[in-house]
């Protein structure tokens, strides 16, 4: 019986990490459903972007209040997790505060964790108020109804509970240290939790140990739960922000990809020497679809983008179409892409690893044409994203499908394109009149 807690802990750890690993594999499989993406050159620049944008949070602070609060929670998350390492070792070995031998350094560590924990609580409460009481515009848009709203709040509640458990655990530990309970060596500094210890006054050693153990267990089980919650939540960004900023676009924002398969065909059309019957892909393969009507037509970086989105809505709040009441919301584009990708993933799981057509697709079932045609391609959403997501590239790929596969552009745009085709300008003017301005007086 002596080793029962150790065994239970090991089992919890294996299950917690095992289930998470399983979902990570699913995540990677789903992302790989996307087409190949050209990730060009300059690795150094990519690393730099990751360090600057993800690790350094440079784009978060564009909005100073949210940015500062986020940095607190982010630092708290990273730094307090050093403590988790000790908790895991203690849990497995049955030790208590195994790093206590670090002496003063340990005191400093625990003390700073506590101060961070308090700051995290303050930040999380502020975040909750912004979402639920102040009701910032970007948090109450239509796409935030239902699960996304709950998800946002759930994350805050979990973080709050974890911080309280951490502090309660320390407070009880501190009290036990003060009364010199066996096993509870004097270690650590408790600038915040010792303020809570008067709550425990008059409690027996047994009761104190029960409080300490309960908080300790709930804290680590809570962390394992939170780890596994990630896959089902927008909170996945805490991991994916790193690869996503690494693979983010390096070219100028205005540069949009040239479709290679189109280049081949256009070259053929313009080449008078070309034999139109020579190169008709006789390899039995269906020609690649132009543009995207479903998630499998997008490239894997775009799918990674979708999983990385944490629904902060900065893109949508900067979008000129959204600001003027149009249906388009770049955040919704990302959320829809992820939801559809998840649906496709579940379909594959249910059908022994093969996708069985479900008569649904990203276009129309998730993203309407009205949304796609409202985009001005201004790149405000791309600029606003704190983790280098590019909603515009998805919008463009879906327009490509509508125009090149379905000839389904709005009629005004068809007129414009006919004009370009016939007379080299978007308006019905003759190319031969292009220099007429030089002859006109003002």
């Amino acid at each position, binding site marked *: 019986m002596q080793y029962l807690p150790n065994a239970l802990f090991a089992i919890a750890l294996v299950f917690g990490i095992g289930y998470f690993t399983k979902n990570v594999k699913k995540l990677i499989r789903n992302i790989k459903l996307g087409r190949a993406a050209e990730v060009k050159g300059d690795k150094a620049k990519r690393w730099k972007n990751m360090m600057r944008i993800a690790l350094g949070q440079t784009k978060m602070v564009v909005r100073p209040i949210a940015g500062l609060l986020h940095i607190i929670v982010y630092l708290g998350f990273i730094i307090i997790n050093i403590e988790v390492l000790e908790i895991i070792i203690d849990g497995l070995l049955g030790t208590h505060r195994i790093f206590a031998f670090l002496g003063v350094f340990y005191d400093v560590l625990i003390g700073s964790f506590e101060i961070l924990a308090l700051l995290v609580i303050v930040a999380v409460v502020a975040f909750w108020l912004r979402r639920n009481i102040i009701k910032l515009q970007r948090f109450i848009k239509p796409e935030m109804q239902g699960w996304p709203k709950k998800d946002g709040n759930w994350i805050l509640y979990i973080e709050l509970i974890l911080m309280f458990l951490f502090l309660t655990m320390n407070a009880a530990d501190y009290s036990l240290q003060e009364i010199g309970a066996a096993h509870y060596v004097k270690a650590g500094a408790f600038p915040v939790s010792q303020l809570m210890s008067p709550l425990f006054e008059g409690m027996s050693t047994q009761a104190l140990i029960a409080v300490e153990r309960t908080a300790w267990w709930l804290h680590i089980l809570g962390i394992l739960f939170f780890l596994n919650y990630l896959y089902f939540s927008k909170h996945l960004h805490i991991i994916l922000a790193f690869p996503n900023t690494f693979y983010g676009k390096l070219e100028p924002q205005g540069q949009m990809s*040239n479709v290679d398969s189109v280049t081949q065909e256009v070259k053929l059309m313009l080449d008078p020497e070309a034999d139109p019957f020579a190169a008709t892909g006789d390899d039995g393969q269906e020609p690649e679809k132009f543009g995207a009507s479903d998630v499998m037509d997008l490239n894997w970086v775009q799918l990674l983008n979708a999983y990385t989105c944490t629904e902060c809505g900065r893109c949508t709040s900067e979008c000129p179409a959204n600001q003027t009441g149009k249906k388009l919301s770049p955040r919704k584009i990302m959320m829809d892409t992820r939801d559809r990708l998840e649906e496709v993933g579940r379909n594959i799981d249910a059908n022994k690893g093969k996708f069985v057509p479900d008569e649904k697709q990203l276009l129309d079932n998730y993203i309407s044409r009205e949304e796609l045609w409202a985009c001005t391609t201004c790149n405000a959403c791309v600029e606003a994203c704190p983790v280098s997501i590019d909603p515009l590239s998805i919008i463009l790929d879906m327009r490509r499908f509508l125009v090149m596969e379905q000839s389904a*552009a709005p009629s005004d745009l068809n007129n414009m394109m006919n004009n370009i085709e016939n007379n080299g300008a978007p308006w019905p003017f003759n190319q031969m009149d292009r220099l007429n301005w030089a002859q006109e007086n003002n």
Partner: protein
Amino acid sequence: MNIPTMASLFAEGKQPEVLFWVGCAGSFDDRAKKITKAFVKILDKAGISFAVLGTEESCTGDPAKRAGNEFLFQMQAMTNIEVLNGYEVKKIVTTCPHCFNTLKNEYPQLGGDYEVVHHTQFLQQLLKEGRIRLQGGSYKGKRVTYHDPCYLGRANGIFEAPRKLIAKLDAELVEMKNCRKNGLCCGAGGAQMFKEPEKGNKDVNIERTEQALETQPDIIAAACPFCNTMMTDGVKNKEKEASVKVLDIAELIADAEDL
């Protein structure tokens, strides 16, 4: 105006310093043609050897590409590249940020590699080299707000050249709530210029014009023929055309120089 074409110079065995890519708006739109002429006057005054393609110029394909018609875009691009390469063009200046972005960023992969500059960059360079001189007399004390075209600013990081030119005019530059990287679109990009907007509660150009008018400007400066149209319409909608002018940077300069 006597505007040299690449064809005529080529026939004489001459190569201009720079090709002026006029663009569709600059060639056909009545308002934008004034910008074209203002820019040409400055080029003439500075003694720049330039030429246009004239009837050999064709749409870069920008609106087609952004509407989703990659075929049409690449057809246009490759045809244009053939013409440009045929004349061994090295440097292009254009008054349209959409042409600028497309020529600069999307043509190289298709075989069209040129040094492409926007006219505000070009003019600032001329100023720096002392090839044009500006006396800001006529704009002294005027409030000018500058609207960043998406495809010049955010898309290509050119924020300062136009602002420096305005500063040289001794005008008082007042910034809008959204400027530089956070500039708000005029509503014309992504082929929106050529279609009716989707249903909403306001047009984008009205939103942007309101931001501009908040700065109580005498002049709204633009650097894109499409932004110019959108802002001009916005000012008309607000019935402010008597007190607020929408002018291109090239027009401001040509005017200051009495050209």
